[in-house]
């Protein structure tokens, strides 16, 4: 590695920002993909991958993705919960890869709930 300058220090910090948002908390949005056996069977893994892909493309560093167990509505899987800081969580149902991409752009980035996939507003908190 070459000799670092002050701006290099800042750049390195910037480059790793999303990793440290993940470790430190302090994220703006959290998307929870429900990955019970039912969710996985319905394609939740692909939802996660599509989501990670969108986050990567957007360059956002304040959004995290977690997984949680079955949401209790197996017939409506794959499901995700979108939590934007200081807003009630929104559950989405019967998602496709395109669907999650749309939700990511419209809701996670844009703050607009995507009605056609929305199931409920407000839900149990995830840990």
């Amino acid at each position, binding site marked *: *590695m*070459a*000799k*670092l*300058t*002050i701006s290099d*220090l800042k750049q*390195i*910090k910037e*480059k*790793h*920002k*999303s*990793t*440290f948002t*993940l*470790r*430190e*908390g302090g*994220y703006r949005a*959290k998307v*929870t*993909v*429900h*990955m*019970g*056996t039912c*969710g*996985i069977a319905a394609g939740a893994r692909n939802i*996660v991958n599509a989501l*990670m892909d969108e*986050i*990567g493309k957007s360059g956002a560093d304040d959004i*995290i*993705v*977690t*997984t*949680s*167990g079955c949401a209790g509505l197996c017939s409506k899987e794959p499901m995700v919960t979108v939590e934007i800081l200081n807003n009630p969580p929104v559950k989405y149902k019967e998602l496709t890869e395109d669907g999650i991409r749309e939700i990511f752009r419209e809701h996670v980035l844009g703050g607009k709930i995507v009605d056609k996939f929305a199931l409920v507003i407000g839900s149990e908190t995830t*840990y």
Partner: protein
Amino acid sequence: MQKFRANLMVCAGTGCVACNALKVKKSLSDEIGKRRLQDEVQIVLTGCNGFCANGPIMSVQPDGIFYQKLKPEDIPIIVEEHLLKGRPVEKFMFREPESKTAVPKMNDIPFFKLQVLRALRNKGMIDPENIEDYISRDGYQAAAKALLELTPEETIKIVKDSGIRGRGGAGFPTGLKWEFCSKVISSSKYILCNGDEGDPGAFMDRSIMEADPHVVLEGMIIAGKAIGATKGYIYVRAEYPLAVKRLQLAIDQAKETGLLGENILDSGFSLDIEIYLGAGAFVCGEETALMRSLEGKRGMPRPRPPFPAVKGLWDKPTVLNNVETFANIPQIILNGAEWFRQLGTEKSTGTKVFVLTGAMNNIGLIEVPMGIPLKTIMYDIGGGISKGRKFKAVQGRHGRHKLYGERGEILSRVHRGRILRQMPSLQSGDAGDVRQIDRYNRGKRKGKRHRASPRPFA
């Protein structure tokens, strides 16, 4: 930059490694590979998290789900349930000692919740072997500020105003020490770090050196600039192999990136730091003995004055500070003296790292504000005395030799190895948590005289 959805922070401090943390890590990478999660989940090896008695430990980020006492064979179920299906596994979580309910999140465990991390702020957060991790947590920003924006006088003023005192035991005001040395004119000066840590059972400094080696270097750079040092040494005992390894790696990385060596950050200031291995003599932790030992001579203290700030290593002006003292410096420079003073007492500002050991429910390393009641440390953070035993007495600071009771009353004085006055309650048969008393009673039974332990508190 690849994005991961989860980071597994696996503790690779000495304690956890001793109970097989590296096998746990191997099992994790195997299992993650098997489940094809390697692009989603990253494993990070960290330094000591301070909860060593419960190791090997791991926290899963985001959310900070905390697992303890892991065995390699536990890993498949954690990977399947938690990482794949998102269901944290209760079986490996911390349990409330009394109610036995599982506490999923690290920050909800009282042991962690009641701590305030400053010197240990990077513990469990970074990979100590990766300089970019350190830089991402504002690493070397304080050095940059001290080298490029502040004059040595301004740096010294901030440190003086912060009120920080040396963490090595004597509690001398750090800013004052730097000021003395900065005023001496000499062609060469030295900045030394005391990583000898001879006090039995203590591992505060080891843990910092292992978990966050760059913070020690950064503190030394700032101090070095303030006093005009031309060379730095870290004196570490050879019994700390992991600390030595990580410090050396940090030094190599800092040199490679120009954060040590010639003309650091184009500031015109140059500093080189070397490690010197001590052979583990307790007395070599004392500053004048340490300097002699560094010179290759027998480590014997010498009378002061002259003080090391005037005549130290090789008779040149020298500043020696403790590892934890240095670990506090970058934050003081970045956040200011007032920020530092917000915690602690009027005369002892900031936080202090302590080791909890012996008959406590939670054993480990903690950082708390100065002036915190011992009771909070023992009962809330330490989880109380183990096996339901009763509190008996506290032995006060070295040199005073007093035993204090629950309400701070003096129970007895120990003088030259003899307990002079003893309260009846201390003679009752049940086990005390203060070893001196146990030993006293045992000695008495055998008809021996009690010998006070030489240095119960540093």
